[in-house]
């Protein structure tokens, strides 16, 4: 088991190191989410409710995640490294877990900027919102990494990923928006946790079939 954890850590570290050297994903995500929030300010008529603003924040989060996910397997594809990774003497689900941790980290870093920016531009954050974002990130990263691997095998990679991802992200948005504005955020948070658990297990179990040639 510790060998498995070691593989996962090595793979995640490799992704972070690549990003540190090339710096092409995280700055793009940061810029994108701040631009999106600026656009939302002008898209909302003045006097719009806080509920509408919260809803738009969720749109920004989902699309920022999508931006990061389209790049998730880009280094492997450009250098055709995926075959090498698959042949590496480790469990294939470790590739998924390592990649998911990398994606999750980028997403959290983007939100560390985005959430204060949202609080600054719109209205202060509630702890329910932050908790919901944290839970949603896990689900988005888990399922998004698997779908990115599926999309990477197709001809229309960048085009296909949003189509595959958005229908599966609808429950995340429902849970997230509900947790942020409803009077009983607990049940929505529980739903998000359930979503994370179910889809993380499913992605973990099925990743092997997606990458094997």
């Amino acid at each position, binding site marked *: 088991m510790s060998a498995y954890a070691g593989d996962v850590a090595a793979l995640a570290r490799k992704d972070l190191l690549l990003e540190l050297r090339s710096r092409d994903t995280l700055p793009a995500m940061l810029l994108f989410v701040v631009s999106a929030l600026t656009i939302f300010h002008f898209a909302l008529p003045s006097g719009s409710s806080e509920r509408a603003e919260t809803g738009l924040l969720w749109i920004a989060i989902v699309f920022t995640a999508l931006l990061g996910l389209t790049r998730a397997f880009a280094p492997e594809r450009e250098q055709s490294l995926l075959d090498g990774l698959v042949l590496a003497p480790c469990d294939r689900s470790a590739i998924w877990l390592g990649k998911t941790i990398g994606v999750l980290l980028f997403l959290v870093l983007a939100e560390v900027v985005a959430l204060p920016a949202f609080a600054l531009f719109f209205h202060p954050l509630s702890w329910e919102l932050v908790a919901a974002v944290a839970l949603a990130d896990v689900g988005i990263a888990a399922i998004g990494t698997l779908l990115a691997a599926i999309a990477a095998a197709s001809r229309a990679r960048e085009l296909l990923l949003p189509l595959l991802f958005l229908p599966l992200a609808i429950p995340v948005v429902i849970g997230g928006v*509900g947790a942020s504005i409803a009077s009983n955020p607990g049940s929505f948070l529980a739903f998000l946790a359930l979503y994370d658990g179910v889809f993380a297990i499913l992605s973990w179990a*099925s990743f092997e079939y997606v990458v094997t040639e």
Partner: protein
Amino acid sequence: MLLVGGYALAFYWAPEDADQGFSQKIFYLHVPIALTAYAAFGWGAWKALRLLWTGDRRYDLESYTAVHIGVIFGLLTLVTGSIWAKISWGEWWTWGERQLVLFLILFLFYSSYFMLRYSTEPGPRRERNSAVYALFGVVLIPVSFLAVRIAGTILHPTVFTHEGANLPWQMLVCFLICLGGMLALAGTFYRVELAGKRADASLRELRELLA
């Protein structure tokens, strides 16, 4: 046959609904179609699971065909549900009707399944990727059902409630006959389409052999 009989019974025999009147008859069309769509998606996912489990390539076409039938019935569910909504509530689309919202999500999801198939080169990779995606679909059904349900109770006011299971027995019998007929119809479509697709596939193989 079963289907025609079921609808004849539904029209002439089943008592009219007290407050929805004649328009309630679409219930015998809409609900069986929706349940058949679920059955087709479930069947597709089962075949997908078999494909991943055994690696037998013939399950790929079976899963694809089942999902295809499911999408057709899902679209019909949206259309009949929309007509029913228009007649009952005067709106073509209402976000308060949870089953319709769920079907919209599923329809979007399974339409992406086709995008996935069309944009991946044929081969074992495509078969496995499609199978994994079909499996995600069958997990998405209860998850979105739950999501739409909790969202329905809080985000949108619950305006309309279903008539529940306490149908008069004539209605129930008609409904079950219609459901059986619809399932039989879907099964027939499935067989016909599967035969067609298999013929297509073997024809393509032959051509490749000759070329």
